[in-house]
């Protein structure tokens, strides 16, 4: 049995050397021997090692270190080959290490490494704590949260929406980008996501800006959303609705978001009726006056709609000389319309 003393006993034997100095030597030796222990190098020049020490170290002591380490070198070589890191307890691998890598790397690479890691990554606790960390770290300063929901996992989605909202963002922007939903069947998407948004927005009563990108949502859900966010000043939705009756959405917006100052419906389908409903609510018939007073920036771009017959109210308002249909109202208010209005 070989005994290697690195500790107190040795210190008392060599009273001249301070413990700190000894520690330094130890780490230098360890550092230079490590490549060999790990099988990256097969040789080591003794002179190379000597150069690492200051003059004071005596050869006997150096030899002592080396002998102590010889044993380790051999064993390390065999050991590191046979060591199976997958046998590490999950509490180290999962909770302590992998979880720190963040959701993106877990999804993109960690879970693909092997079945053991995949199993670890599937553990809900991996995700719970990440959600907690991210949201809690914001300490109420959260101004932008993006949620990717995995629609195969209801618990996860509920959990995240709940977590996110335990500390409701006091700021202005909530971006919800559930691209995951697009790979599932549309009927489910509507229902599921609609619920998600409702749940998510319920507690954000101070929300001022809401952007919904690439999502499908029921008109009723827009209403719920609007009612839950009475402070909403800006609303952006830039995806075509799945519903054939897009005006329902437009009406929903008009009905439930009276305080809107900025509305962007780029890429959505709607008819003039819907636009009129909006104009009616926000502009109360007296278009120009209220435009100046209330809406600072109103964008409505229609694609996929053939030349529509403009209603007089809108017609009156648009400048025939402007071929692009962009309209500037004197007094700083601005209405920009799509290419249909020319």
């Amino acid at each position, binding site marked *: *049995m070989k005994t290697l*003393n690195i500790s107190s006993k040795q210190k008392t034997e060599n009273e001249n050397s301070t413990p700190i100095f000894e520690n330094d030597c130890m780490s230098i030796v360890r550092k230079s021997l490590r490549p060999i222990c790990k099988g990256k190098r097969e040789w080591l020049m003794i002179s190379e090692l000597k150069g690492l020490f200051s003059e004071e170290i005596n050869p006997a002591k150096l030899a002592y270190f080396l002998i102590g380490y010889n044993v380790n070198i051999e064993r390390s070589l065999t050991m590191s080959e046979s060591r199976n*890191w997958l046998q590490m307890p999950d509490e*180290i691998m999962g909770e302590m290490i992998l979880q*720190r*890598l963040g959701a993106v790397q877990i999804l993109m690479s960690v879970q693909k*490494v*092997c*079945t053991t890691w*995949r199993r670890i990554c599937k553990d809900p606790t991996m995700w719970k704590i990440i959600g907690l960390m991210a949201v809690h770290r914001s300490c109420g300063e959260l101004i932008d949260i993006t949620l990717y929901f995995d629609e195969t996992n209801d618990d996860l989605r509920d959990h995240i929406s709940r977590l996110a909202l335990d500390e409701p963002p006091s700021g202005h922007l909530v971006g919800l980008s559930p691209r995951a939903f697009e790979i599932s069947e549309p009927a489910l998407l509507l229902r599921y996501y609609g619920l998600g948004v409702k749940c998510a927005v319920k507690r954000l009563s101070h929300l001022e800006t809401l952007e919904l990108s690439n999502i499908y949502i029921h008109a009723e859900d827009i209403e719920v959303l609007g009612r839950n966010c009475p402070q909403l000043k800006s609303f952006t939705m830039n995806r075509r609705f799945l519903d054939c009756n897009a005006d329902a959405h437009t009406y929903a917006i008009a009905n439930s978001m009276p305080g809107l100052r900025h509305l962007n419906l780029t890429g959505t389908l709607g008819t003039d009726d819907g636009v009129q409903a909006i104009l009616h609510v926000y502009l109360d018939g007296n278009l120009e006056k209220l435009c100046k007073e209330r809406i600072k920036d109103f964008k409505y771009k229609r694609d996929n709609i053939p030349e529509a017959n403009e209603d007089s109210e809108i017609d009156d308002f648009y400048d025939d000389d402007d071929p692009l249909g962009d309209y500037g109202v004197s007094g700083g208010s601005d209405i920009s319309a799509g290419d249909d209005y020319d």
Partner: protein
Amino acid sequence: MSKKTLTLMSKDKQLFNIEEHLAVQSVTIRNMVKEDGASSVIPLPRVDSETLALVIEYLNRQQAPEEDEDYVKKFVDERGEIPTLLELAQAALDLDIKKLMDAACMKVADLIKDFTLEEVREALRIENDRTPEEEKAIRDEFQWAF
């Protein structure tokens, strides 16, 4: 010198001496000492001697408490190789030395943070044990992430 010394035995039967008042930073050892006075050798069947040497070096540190955080960080930084750190983490878990375990795990996480899939496998010597069918299943499930 009447300070009590404990002897720890690694997996490969090497013996290490350490003063008791330093050793009890490990909750595991502290409990053992409390129970039977730990007059004999304390066996650590899961810790190899190289790792135990590191642990003892850590326990022997002579830092003021306020410099401790920095010391642990530096300590693991100097041993920036993943297998070493994982052994260290495992040993620290067995011996219940929380600070050391946290620091070692944090360092490993930092190291593999930007690794690609293949790099992770190589660094930890993990074989890809999934079938092509499983690979495809994952790709399909997380299609939106690619």
